[in-house]
């Protein structure tokens, strides 16, 4: 893209970060009383809200229920005011149903669904403000919401994006970098075992560069997992002190 320099000669990006630096992360658990679990997540200017209901009896058609494990139902949506251009986003458009499917696949890899036969777990995520890395913000918020709901998981699922500009991998892309025409790789990782829950890449990349890009995304995910870990432990401490009799 002409005129927009994604990485300066000094090694700084558009928003002043270094190549491997993440954006500021903030999160809170248990934001709603009504739901079984909920969380709010800010990754830079991307803001996501996740709510978990369940495990509960399968609603709607009973044929969906599985006799040996729980069904995970994800719904992704974006607020009308989430992007620069105000736009009505009807439910079930192609982009959001694809994202819902990706979220479902990610969490089927992490949640111990076989413990809850014939049940259903609902995960609803909403992007309140979009500035790149929507998928990763959703995954991270949903992870916190699942932990809040007390649903058993193998490990946290941490997701992060990475891009490739001028032979340098960039971690945690913002909207300007994502739309800059380069490659974007989204990675969802179970950080302790380093097993991949989902990886997705749009645009082309020379295969020699792939290991470097994957490495950058993995490191970013692990950095993110530390932040999530802190948030969960903090929450745990607060609540357990409160409930102590």
């Amino acid at each position, binding site marked *: 893209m002409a005129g927009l320099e994604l990485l300066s000669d000094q090694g700084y990006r558009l928003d002043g970060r270094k190549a491997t630096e993440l954006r500021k992360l903030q999160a809170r658990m248990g934001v709603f009383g009504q739901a079984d679990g909920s969380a709010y997540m800010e990754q830079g200017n991307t803001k996501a809200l996740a709510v978990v209901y369940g*495990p509960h*009896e399968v609603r709607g058609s009973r044929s969906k229920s599985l006799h040996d494990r729980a069904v995970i139902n994800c719904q992704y949506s974006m607020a009308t005011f989430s992007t620069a251009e105000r736009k009505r986003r009807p439910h079930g458009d192609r982009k959001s149903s694809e994202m819902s499917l990706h979220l479902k696949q990610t969490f089927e890899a992490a949640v*111990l669904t076989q413990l809850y036969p014939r049940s259903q777990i609902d995960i609803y995520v909403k992007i309140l403000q979009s500035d790149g890395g929507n998928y990763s913000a959703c995954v991270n918020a949903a992870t916190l919401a699942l932990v809040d709901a007390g649903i*058993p998981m*193998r490990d*946290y699922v941490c997701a992060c994006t990475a891009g490739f500009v001028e032979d340098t991998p960039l971690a945690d892309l913002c909207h300007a970098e994502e739309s800059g025409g380069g490659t974007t790789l989204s990675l969802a990782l179970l950080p302790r075992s380093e097993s991949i829950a989902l990886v997705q890449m749009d645009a082309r990349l020379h295969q020699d560069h792939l290991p470097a890009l994957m490495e950058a995304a993995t490191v970013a995910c692990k950095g993110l997992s530390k932040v999530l870990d802190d948030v969960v432990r903090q929450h745990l*401490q607060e609540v357990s*002190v409160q409930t102590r009799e």
Partner: protein
Amino acid sequence: MAVDMRLPARKQAFLPAIHSSSDGKHLVVPGDVITSDTGFMRGHGTYMDDEKLTASVAGEVERVNKLICVRPLKTRFNGEVGDVVVGRITEVQQKRWKVGTNSRLDSVLLLSSVNLPGGELRRRSAEDELTMRDYLQEGDLISAEVQSVFSDGALSLHTRSLKYGKLGQGVLVQVSPSLIKRQKTHFHNLTCGASIILGNNGYVWIYPTPGHQDEEAGGYYTSLEPVPLSDREIISRLRNCLLALAAHKVMLYDTSILYCYESSLTHQIKDILKPEIVDEIVMETHQRLLDQEG
């Protein structure tokens, strides 16, 4: 019209000031290795990850001899035989009702495990099956006891006692199941003039104290008499008190509820929902409970 408005404020925890840090508690998060010793047994909230006992939920580790469990802070209701529950009928099926009890699967109330009106013990005929909806229909609230737990974790309920059955006029409050203290009885006639059913599943039913029990109805008689204003005020106050206690994660049982009710008497009923007043009355309740423990 007077309107009460407030700006969002970060909720401040006042209890940590009383108890300092959580001493001696072993808190874990999903993926934490609890032990790599193979001599332990795997309980709820854990899984084996190549020979290592790993936590799958965030919570507190509990050890009973060789068994290791992790109890999550917040979870759905896990029923046990003998638990008192309050539930809502979600479906009427052949010979059974499905009851929503905040559990991970809907519970089952068999036609053969209810006391039908008339009180006599008899075989359930095909006619009874056809009139099931007359006794309980979708949306009705009932109180019941857990009779057994099926292999998939669903609960089977029964109402074979006069104290269980359909609930008439009253108020339902839903709180977390972990806040209900297990006690010998979960039915209380509070001295303040209302009665309460503390379901183990976190559903609490507040209702005016019934005058007399109608034996003939077998627990399926519901009074539609208007409830006097004084009783309704007591019920509303109790409801707001329960919400206040639940917001501060105070265990719910007859004494704590009564103490909270008494502390709230200086305030108007609607004011009990305001955060600063909630803090005040819960603090007072807490102090009285501590004093009573000695």
